[in-house]
């Protein structure tokens, strides 16, 4: 099965659409002004290729992604702001097109939940340590501490721990 270059080239061309290759960096698409191009690329990473399997238009090689890139680049070149461009895309494709959901009341749960978990955990930790302070008002002597460690551990700690206990 010796490959003939013509056959190979045709096969590669037909199969090219299957392959995703950081399509946005294609030199034939680029804007002349590097600052504008950088802005467009940053925007691409936040915009979903709506027909693809969870890819941004920066990564996708699909035709629609190419169309969207062209559109965004034109708007960047025309001097529209990022917010205007995003709004325009949402008007056309819905919120689905944004890989970064907007900060809005409807998305409040999404954006605040991570930090609520931290606050909850912090409160739980404070409550736990406060409770332990009530339980244990007096300082233990080193002898008592060692005995307590033996009792709660119910095994003899390894040697390094005995020595490390002497550390300030």
């Amino acid at each position, binding site marked *: 099965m010796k490959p003939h270059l013509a056959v190979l080239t045709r096969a590669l061309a037909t199969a090219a659409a299957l392959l*995703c*290759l950081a399509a946005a960096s294609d*030199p034939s698409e680029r804007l002349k002004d590097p600052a504008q191009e950088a802005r467009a690329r940053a925007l691409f990473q936040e915009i979903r290729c709506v027909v*693809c399997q969870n890819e941004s238009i920066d990564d996708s090689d699909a035709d629609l992604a190419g169309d969207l890139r062209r559109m965004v680049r034109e708007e960047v070149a025309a001097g529209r702001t990022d917010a205007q461009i995003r709004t325009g895309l949402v008007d056309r494709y819905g919120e689905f097109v944004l890989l970064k959901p907007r900060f809005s009341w409807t998305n409040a749960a999404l954006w605040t*939940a*991570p930090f609520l*978990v931290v606050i909850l955990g912090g409160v739980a*930790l404070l409550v736990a340590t406060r409770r332990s302070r009530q339980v244990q008002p007096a300082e233990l002597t080193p002898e008592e501490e060692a005995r307590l460690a033996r009792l709660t551990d119910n095994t003899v700690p390894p040697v390094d721990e005995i020595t490390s206990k002497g550390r300030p």
Partner: protein
Amino acid sequence: MIAELGAFALLLALCLSAAQAGLSAAGRGLNSPLLRGAGEGAAAAAFGAVAIAFAALTVAFVTSDFSVANVAANSHTDKPLLYKVAGVWGSHEGSLLLWCLCLTGFGAAVALLGRGLPAGLKALTVASQGALGVLFLGFAVFASNPFLRLDPAPLQGRSLNPLLQDPALAFHPPFLYGGYVGFSIVFSFAVAALIEGRVDAAWARWVRPWTLAAWSLLTVGIALGAFWAYYELGWGGWWFWDPVENASFMPWLVGAALLHSAIVTEKRGALPGWTVFLALAAFTFSMLGAFLVRSGVLTSVHAFAVDPARGVLLLGILGIAAGAGFALFAWRAPSFAPGGVFAPVSRESTLVLNNVFLSAATATVLLGTLYPLIVEAVRGDAVSVGAPYFNLTFVPLLAAALLILPAGPLLAWKRGDLKGVLQRLWAAAGLAVLASVAAYALYDPKKAFAALGVGLGVWLIAGALVEVGERAKLGRVPGAEAWRRLKGLPRGAWGMTLAHVGLGVFVLGACTETAWKVEAAETLALGQTMRVGAYELKLEQASSVDGPNYLAERGVLVATKGGREVCRPEPERRFYPASRQTTSEVALCFRGLSDLYVVLGERRATEAGEPAWLVRAYWNPWARLIFLGPLLMAIGGAISLSDRRLRLAAARKAAPAAKVEAAA
């Protein structure tokens, strides 16, 4: 014949798992050593039966037996042997068989190796693992049987997706599943402890090595997957916050939290309920991952073996197993004694804080992954949650956890001396600040957050080394004495240090690569050049190549830096006729810790009509560290594991000596 043998062995394994669950549970209930032993024997036999089934499927793949439907769909006679074997776990059915192999394997390991376990706890653990085996083997036998025949058998198979024909990906699933399913034994330990009503230091000590083993395997599996994505997908990314990646990351995060909370339970008897909760959660997230990846409810670039009908069955299994586990938890956990007390500044507190941040990070990944489903169910709208969301939420949570990390191991249990610890860490802090400033000043373009990230990486590495130095009393005792202490440190201590250093190494690499990678793409005719970072690339020649099961176009480029040749990258663009797919074979030039990454794109024509090729190149500074870090973490885990075994063996050796003394 081989396929029938496999099908029979699989069915036998299902029956043996049922026997394992029934006999072990009865052995505990009736307090009968005979029944308990029979349950353990059934556990070992179930593993043996699944191993036979697995071997049978492997033989079918290696001999290209296309009368087996699964082989016909996933293999091809031209495929290299490695990928014929890897094809075994390349499909829905085969990967589920691998899952069952790990599940029964861990069950057999506890049955055969867990000699020192209390009899009741061990019997219930083996029983619970058997029940899990029944669920998954039942699914394999009745809904996902890899041994179904085709009649008439096709002459040729449809081959494995060429993107998956890669060494890193061939070994990715065994490690990943070892990790995913390794958490099943931790789940079973938790179920057993809940039924027994005792979660104490001894229980935590038994759970820790299994957690460590599963977590280390998962670390390697995820890192291999990331490395594969890095060089096989052809755009130099290694983590995309894709639902499938998140599915593997959540059990990892919970496993990491569990490793740390189990230390608190083992050493101080505190947090028993929370540790059991995490033990249940880790495998629940593994099952959730299996469901998300295979059901197609979330769209993903890596959508793998998607089958919605069987996805519903997997959801059912998840509901039964996790539902039973957490119902048991809700019933029994409130009766647990709260355990040891500790002050706000103590090693316990930092470990709890670690758990708070890791839990928040897990919750973030879970919410971000499922949010589109939730919104669609509640509001009927379609929304997307992609990488930008995770970068804004997960990264700060992780950074906060990493910031407090070096202080943890230096603080004393119960009540620590924060001032003393900070005094010991000043050198590490100074180095970190210096690294941040240097990164900000030297790298172009200037990126403040990435520079802080570099500082954080140095803080982790230096902090871990300071801790080792403290243990050896380096600088406070004579050199020989410090060296003796250093050699005498338990392997567990070295394992922890290595894992924390690995984390720092990863942070260094991830921040540097993400912030300062350079990308370039040009259409090059033969002899033309392009620049990427400090390098110049010249396309010297392009030729066609005949691979074992593909045709390729290969570009030969010369990379020079300052006029001196540094390497000759040879990227390929491959076409696999069997599946009519094209892949790109990236050429990597190792430049120390950094990579020059070259991809051959499609063939085009210059304006003059000459043939030309689209060439993409990236300069990925310190990319090597992104994969070296997780490797160090996994090695750290393995070293800690070896420590445990040594200590147990030493205890056993010491016991007869004590007896002799007593006799004398």
